């Protein structure tokens, strides 16, 4: 398989009985890039990660990680990857140092390298200051840093992160992402699942999986230009308003409105190209109803996924 890509899948499929959880997945992730893997819960994200980590055997297709076949070379794949799951999966009764020590031994690092790496990941993640503290007593953000430190001990070339920031506070989230960027700069390939759109927008490329199928793949700009997202001859407007529900109710029946979605105190509307912002504002209720001026806008990643998911849902 390609030498340039860190992760390659070709028609990767997983069936449980008659139920297909992951269907015909094909994509490639470049070395040193951050790949965002998105999709609703139960869409097959975790199963895909488990297949790539060699935890779950694919029913069909092939996958390779760092050049090793996930099915036939599971052992070498496991040595090349780090894995950080969404739940805190370290030992709360062991101290920070003992957890690091355990994973160092699990990856069979010799004592000298183990000590050196413990120092390096401890400094990188900042966890070194807590080395004698039981892991259970760490806060959520520090637990995730410890998990990351453990996953990095053996200097993996590819790092799988399954919702690494679920349930931690925004500051800890930002710090963790800064760390991930530094890793990517160092040549580590990151494969990240997340539900946070701002995190997805930080990724070099994203894939969107829905009901086991990869329905979008590319950079954010590429995805914005997908036909389902910006149908030709349409314009996307952002409308600020106090009464989003009323504006939403007013927008839906308008014949030229292709789509309307609420984002906080904004309404995102896709309308036929010939419609002027003034007409849209008037039809929604006008200034008197507290409708702000419609502003033309690019699709956000969230717009992209809402559009793609809507396009798929009634199948």
């Amino acid at each position: 398989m390609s030498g340039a890509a860190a992760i390659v899948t070709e028609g990767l499929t997983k069936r449980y009985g008659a139920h297909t959880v992951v269907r015909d997945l094909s994509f490639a992730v470049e070395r040193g890039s951050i790949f965002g893997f998105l999709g609703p819960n139960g869409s097959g994200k975790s199963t895909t990660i488990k297949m790539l980590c060699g935890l779950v055997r694919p029913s069909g297709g092939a996958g390779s990680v760092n050049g090793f076949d996930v099915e036939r070379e599971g052992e070498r794949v496991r040595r090349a990857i780090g894995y950080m799951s969404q739940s805190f999966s370290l030992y709360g009764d062991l101290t920070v140092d003992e957890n690091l020590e355990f994973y160092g031994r699990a990856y069979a690092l010799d004592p000298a390298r183990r000590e050196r790496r413990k120092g390096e990941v401890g400094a990188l993640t900042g966890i070194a200051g807590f080395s004698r503290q039981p892991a259970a007593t760490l806060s959520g953000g520090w637990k995730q840093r410890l998990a990351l430190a453990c996953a990095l001990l053996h200097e993996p070339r590819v790092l799988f992160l399954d919702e690494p920031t679920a349930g931690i506070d925004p500051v800890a989230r930002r710090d963790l992402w800064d760390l991930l960027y530094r890793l990517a700069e160092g040549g580590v390939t990151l494969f990240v699942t997340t539900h946070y759109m701002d995190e997805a927008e930080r990724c070099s490329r994203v894939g969107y999986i829905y009901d086991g199928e990869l329905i979008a793949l590319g950079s954010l700009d590429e995805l914005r230009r997908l036909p389902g997202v910006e149908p030709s001859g349409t314009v996307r407007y952002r409308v600020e308003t106090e009464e989003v529900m009323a504006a939403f109710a007013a927008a839906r029946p308008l014949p030229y409105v292709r789509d309307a979605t609420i984002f906080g105190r904004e309404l995102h509307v896709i309308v036929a190209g010939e419609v002027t912002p003034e007409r849209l504002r008037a039809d929604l209720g006008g200034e008197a109803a507290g409708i702000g001026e419609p502003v033309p806008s690019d699709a956000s990643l969230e717009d992209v996924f809402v559009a793609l998911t809507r396009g798929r849902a009634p199948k």
Partner: protein
Amino acid sequence: MRRAFDLRGFLAVLYKEVKHVTRDPVTLALALALPVVQLLLFGYAINTKVQHIGSAYLDEDRGALSVRALDALRASDQFDLVYRATSRAQLRALIVAGRVRVAFDIAPNFTADVRSGRPGEIQVLIDGSDSSVAQQAFAASTAIGSALSAALGPGTRGASVAPTLVDVRPRMLFNPSLRSANFLVPGLIGVIMQVITIFLMSLSIVGERERGTLEQLLVTPIGPLGLMLGKIVPYACIGFVDFLFVLGAMRWIFGVPIAGSLPLLLVLGAGFLMAALGLGLWVSAVARTQVQAMLMTFALTMPSILLSGFFFERDLMPPVMQWVGYLIPLTYFLEILRGIVLRGAGISALWPSVTAMMALGTGLVIFASIRFARSTS
């Protein structure tokens, strides 16, 4: 103000709990079936009337009356004459090996003695390890002796007291004072070792499954086999230390001396630990939650205690229960423990139990390992 009791709230909780229970059919099945199974086990296994005690005999007389005496023994419900020995040494060896609990030795001139009005001698050797069985065997053998005296005495009509024509002389082997501690304590050692090892082993692995750390372990190069061994070894060590502790307690607290070879006992104890850890590993592979693991340990322990011969003489159980007992490693280990500790038995006497226990243990470990490796992928 909040009402003390809100019916709808209660029903909502009830609804939720019913869902929980039905979502977890394994726990439900165990919770429902266990009491019934235990009731059956207790009901069948507790049989205080001693019947069909496996017995051996040696007819040194081979006369007309010794045959009648043996017929009387056969006709009784208490004794089953399952072995015919050819020497006194063999008679004793059968008891040491645990093949029989009682042995009858009819003296060489039994027929002549009785015919001439002298008491004919029947020596009864009783394995005293199990005090309750021994006591009842004692009483039953003297009762049969009196009955034989009455039946064989020809000229006693009208006499108020029948002369003693058959002199039954019971002799306790191994535990002459019939202390029940001597019987129960070695058995308890086996039971405790089994419970501790299954519990520790399964709770540890299932706990990892629950916390999600098992998955984390499986993406490391450790692999299922390394994981299993890494789990087995510490608990095998703990189990072995437990073994030493309880042996010490037996010797110095309960005052039960070890009649046989201590090294042999230690080696075979390690063999039993392997079987128990195999069970623990199997529980680890099957149970999804720690509650399930605990219930499964309980489910394995009860039949082990009831059917292995720990409390109740296996010979006295219905055949089906005896057969189930053959599938329990503890059954063989109890034979070995009591054989070595109480009767001074060596490997030559115990080899059937040793072979069966090791075969069962090896099979369990292999079966459980395959099951475990499959459960992790």
